[in-house]
């Protein structure tokens, strides 16, 4: 059965482009231009994935409200913010509301499709047994590539997709410096340097939340970051 994706986006051209691209990937696409229309539809049936813009027609923060309502309706529904806003504050707010990813509209359609596929893969993987081949172990760190799960000393680290790919790229080749462009490519996002920096910061903080002595991600000034064991 085809996966159903709901796109809530007030810009018709963009909405149709996204819908067309994702439909080409074999997904069933429903599009809504505002929050009330979307919620009305969601009451009858929840989609398998929701892609939401933050500002929706009259509501500058309508996407946030919609995310909150969706999350209240289902704890497991994957939600992606796709927005023109690129400020860290917006990203943090979105992720804090329970979104699974925060993607700026700079992302290309193939990247978006890959991102969507990855998210579905993670959700599917959660229901399958772990595949040892996809496991990366680096000291206290364990990355399950199939489930897209990360643990540190056995405790799960809740990472967004972008963050997951960043950690994944760094930990795959410990000691190698990954510059920002490489990290962006790994995460399938087009972000400016600042956003990468803030993603790294957020990742560090999430690890430090579990282990205050965490300093495995090292900054190589002017170049990028590397994983140190």
């Amino acid at each position, binding site marked *: 059965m085809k996966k159903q994706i709901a796109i809530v986006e007030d*810009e018709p*051209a*963009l909405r149709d*482009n*996204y819908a*067309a*691209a994702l439909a*080409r990937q074999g997904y069933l696409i429903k599009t809504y231009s505002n929050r009330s229309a979307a919620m009305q539809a969601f009451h009858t049936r929840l989609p398998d994935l929701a892609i939401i813009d933050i500002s929706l027609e009259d509501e500058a923060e309508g996407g946030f409200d919609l995310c909150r309502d969706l999350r209240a309706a289902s704890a497991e529904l994957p939600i992606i913010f796709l927005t*023109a*806003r690129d*400020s*860290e504050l917006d990203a943090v707010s979105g992720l804090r509301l329970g979104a699974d990813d925060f993607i700026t*509209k*700079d992302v*290309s*359609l*193939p990247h978006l499709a890959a991102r969507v596929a990855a998210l579905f893969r993670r959700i599917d993987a959660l229901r399958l047994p772990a595949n040892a081949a996809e496991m990366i172990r680096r000291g206290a760190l364990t990355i399950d590539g199939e489930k897209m799960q990360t643990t540190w000393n056995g405790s799960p680290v809740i990472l967004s997709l972008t963050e997951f790919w960043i950690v994944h790229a760094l930990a795959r080749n410990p000691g190698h410096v990954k510059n920002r462009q490489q990290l962006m490519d790994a995460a399938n996002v*087009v972000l*400016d*340097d*600042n956003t990468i*920096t*803030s993603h790294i910061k957020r990742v560090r903080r999430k690890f430090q939340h579990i282990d205050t002595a965490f300093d495995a991600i090292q*900054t*190589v*000034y*002017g*170049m990028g970051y590397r994983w140190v064991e």
Partner: protein
Amino acid sequence: VSIRLQLLIVALTTLVLPWAGCQYARELESALRGSQERSLLASAGTIANALSAQPQRVFRDVADSGAFSAAQGDLYVYPLVTQPLIDGYREDWDIAADPTPLPTSTGYRARLQAGATEHYLYLFLEVDDRHFDPEPYNVHAGKDRFDRVNLTLQNPDGAAASYFFATDAPGLIAAQSVVKNEDGTQRVLVEPRIQAFWLQTAAGYRLEARIPLSFVGRHLWIEALDGSGDGRAGIGADSAAGGRLFFATTGLDTLLATFIRDGTLATVIDVNSLKLGLAGSLNAARLKESEESPWYRYFLGADTENMPTITAAPDHMSGEPVRAALEGNARAQWALSGTRELLLTAAAPIMIEGRTLGAVVLQQAGDQLLALRDDALTRLFNLTLIATAAAVIIMFGFASWISLRIGRLRNAADSAVGSDGKIRLGMPDSGRGDEIGDLSRGFERLLSRLNEHTQYLRTLGGKLSHELRTPLTIVRSSLDNLESEGLRDDQLRYITRAREGTVRLQSILSALGAAARVEESIKQSERVNFDLRDLITSAVAAYRDGFPAANFALDVPPDPCFMRGAPDLLVQLLDKLIENAVDFCPAGGSITVHLARVPSNYSLQVINDGPLIPEAPLKHLFESMFEQRQGRDDKPHFGLGLYIVRLIAEFHGGAAVAANRADGGGVIFSITLPLI
């Protein structure tokens, strides 16, 4: 010329006040003088009228009004206040005038003065005769020659009597007379009632004689004869009329005194201007000694300078009012006395039966008036000068205050737009209701409009970058979709070009919003301790990879350089500086990154070969949206790169400056960063 000076000059116009005061004082003085003139003239007229009603108390002889002629031997008899001693000295006569010369035809000189008390006529004769010819013992007058003075008196009854004075030795003598004996011989009689003192002096002799008034009539003959020659002087007995005696009128002083007030000198004169009587004095009413003329009198003009001068004579009066009065017209005049005191003289004729027989002359000192004027003027001057000084000081203070306020406003206006392009609102004095307050408020309005505009410009980049993002995304996503439609290769080529265009657009938008993002990330930055040397070393290593065309030189201290700050931001700062240096560094040129520890600061310098920066833009280089140089690549420039450098340097408590290299081969960008 500053406002302060201008107002000071304006304030000086208050000096017109003292000037106006002077004019007023002058007019006041003139009016006072006029009124004093009129009142004195009226007094003179009144006294003259009163006197003409009782002529016998004024004139000894109303009928006799012959002209006075000194050449004819006419003699004014001074009224003597005290009885002089008969001693050959005149000092106790207390008369300012010198004896008058007697007429002479021989060059023999003698001088005579006459005075009178109530009972005696005094004569004082001075004869220039170096050779004393004494009177021989028991001579008969006229036979032997000796120095003698002949005196013929006409007694009140009209009969004449002749006497002579001579002596064998100087001293107290009596008059002698020659009488004819019955046998026709002559003998000399001594008249003991006429006493005299013969005093021999170096120049000749003096004779002071005292004659009872009962011997004295209207006429008198007196002649000095030289005993050793033909010299003679005076009016001889051969003159028919002899000299006439002009007496002051007895009792007239007392009479006059009843008419006058203090401070007035009243003189009654006859037609010959000779004084008949006087009363009062000029000085009695003088308030105080006339002081030195105040200096400002010089500014008032010398109004007394062109007044006529009247010299007072002891025996007669002179001047225009006297002359006019004797012609029958009352007249008053201001004049200067011999001692340069201001004197008001008023004269009125004494008319009896249509004839002018004399005049009443009243004199008052104007010094009283002058003193009054000077006093008033001094006070006026002082007051107005104080007022002027106060006005000047107040105006100066006011001007200073105004100029201070304007200066404050100017300073505020000067610094309203900071070097960071931010506008500080809030002008001084804007709460005041005056024009400067208006100006201040005008500035405020201007600034707030400017501020809105600047804010708009400042946020325009961010807004633009945000607003353009959606259409750009539509274009890109459409291209993506188009690509998936299975296009021909030639079509794909155009798609690729369009995509390249969107990538460039994307980077432009990103650059546009860069400053706003840096400002935001500065707000969210956390400070950590880190090694600056380490940061720079690894960053430069990255630049060597990133810009293989440029030669990087690194010059860092041997020890770690710990500081507290945001390393990410500092890397961005370095990025911008290096990008800038690479842009302007010619091919083959070198870029030096230099870190040094100077007291209390780290000094980070990025030095590149390349063109110099003109002096003028140097200090604006770090301002927002300042872009003078055109980079050589096609990357977008919005003049934000160095502004970001500055934002980051200032976030760390440091500063950024740019300078041309001393050797002229390039530029130096220096960042100072505090140690901790």
